[in-house]
């Protein structure tokens, strides 16, 4: 600072760069970090690294600058946003806000931001059904990411207590709304994935709320963290009608925290009912198998009986045939045909016995000539 005459001695004089430094120092002391709400205009991203836009309302406009990586929600001209920023004068003397975070506000802007990001992430395939992994049927370790003060957390635990027991819940107590919520949830997801014994499933919970309350779950980095999680993720966010990008990217989404408990844990009563039904069914199976065995024994007995009966019949038939054959040699049959049977020694003057069908006779051999 340079001092000239008396008047000048009371009036500070600066070099330009010093003056800018003093102004920025004064701004920092006066404001530090501030939030400003306004409408986005002249939004542009240069070289995919630097984001420029104006924030305006009916009475004025202020230039804003931020790094592209800090922009976690898509912006478009006309969207109403709140920026957290540090007011600064650049080395060229231009006043601007160096933006740290930007959040859409108002239903229209939130919806617009949601739709823009949804299209972008869908084009990357983050919501594809093929990416979805099944949740374990009987999880033993479940990481719950929620605020333990939230009604949604209490609802989840209440229903969980009625389901199959024996589960270890590891609870990461995080904010589930507000500017720091997405980063806290992301850190909890990373924590779960880096555990020496990772959980079987991660459940992200938050009860109902306004679109603004739930907007944390539409944060791009959070959505990408869920997509990148090695551990399957189940979400239970808001009410039936709410849909967040976290729901869309999760392996499974439940409509409410209570429903999430029903989805992640098997139904104890249904399992008990099934066990009892299985035991009943087994008794029926036993009876059937016993009947089958008895039927088999009957069949074998019947078959054996049939074989024996056939054998007897065959033997009877053979006996009958032999009897028929023997009858052919019966002398009576020959006598009945008119022949006579002569018995005795065939010698001259010998008496022989003659038997016919009707009589017995004796006769003397008067002539014996050899044939």
């Amino acid at each position, binding site marked *: 600072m340079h001092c000239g005459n008396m008047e000048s001695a009371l009036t500070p004089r600066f070099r330009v760069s010093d003056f800018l430094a003093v102004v920025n120092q004064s701004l920092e002391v006066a404001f530090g970090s501030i939030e400003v709400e306004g409408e986005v205009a002249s939004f542009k991203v240069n070289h995919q690294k630097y984001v420029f836009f104006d924030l305006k309302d009916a009475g004025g406009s202020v230039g804003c600058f931020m790094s592209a990586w800090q922009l976690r929600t898509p912006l478009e001209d006309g969207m109403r946003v709140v920026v957290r920023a540090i007011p600064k004068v650049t080395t060229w003397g231009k006043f601007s806000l160096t933006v740290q975070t930007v959040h859409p506000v108002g239903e229209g802007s939130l919806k617009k931001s949601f739709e823009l990001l949804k299209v972008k992430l869908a084009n990357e395939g983050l919501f594809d059904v093929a990416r979805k992994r099944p949740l374990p*049927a*009987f999880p*033993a370790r479940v990481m719950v990411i929620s605020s*333990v003060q939230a009604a949604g957390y209490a609802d989840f*635990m209440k229903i*969980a*207590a009625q389901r*199959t*027991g*024996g*589960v*270890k*819940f*590891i*609870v*990461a*107590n*995080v*904010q589930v709304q507000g500017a*720091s919520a997405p980063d*806290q*949830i992301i*850190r*909890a997801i990373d*924590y779960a994935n880096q555990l020496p014994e990772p959980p079987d499933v991660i459940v992200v919970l938050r009860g109902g709320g306004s679109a603004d309350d739930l907007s944390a779950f539409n944060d791009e980095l959070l959505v990408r963290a869920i997509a990148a999680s090695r551990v399957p993720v189940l979400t239970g966010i808001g009410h039936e009608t709410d849909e967040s990008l976290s729901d869309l990217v999760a392996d499974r989404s439940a409509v409410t925290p209570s429903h999430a408990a029903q989805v992640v844990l098997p139904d*104890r009563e249904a*399992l*008990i009912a099934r*066990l*009892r039904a*299985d*035991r009943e069914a*087994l008794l029926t*199976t*036993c009876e059937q*198998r*016993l009947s089958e*065995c008895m039927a088999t024994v009957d069949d074998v007995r019947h078959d054996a009986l049939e074989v024996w009966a056939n054998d007897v019949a065959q033997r009877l038939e053979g006996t009958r045939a032999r009897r028929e054959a023997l009858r052919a040699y019966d002398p009576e049959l020959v006598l009945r045909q008119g022949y006579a049977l002569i018995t005795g020694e065939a010698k001259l003057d010998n008496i022989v016995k003659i038997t016919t069908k009707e009589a017995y006779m004796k006769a003397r051999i008067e002539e014996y000539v050899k044939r």
Partner: protein
Amino acid sequence: MSNDKTIEQQITALQEKIAWFHSDAFSLDEAAARYKEIDDLAAAIERTLLEKKHHIEVLKQKFDE
């Protein structure tokens, strides 16, 4: 019954035992003993389902920074 098995493992074991009754390996000689095993296992699972409580651990770890 073995308590160090998870409910899922116990239910799987039960289903395997039940499957024997529908298999060609079924024999009347073994059926009664096997049915008793299944009855005991099913009762043990039911007791586990009714008695086992959850364990909740809220992490002390802060996630705000």
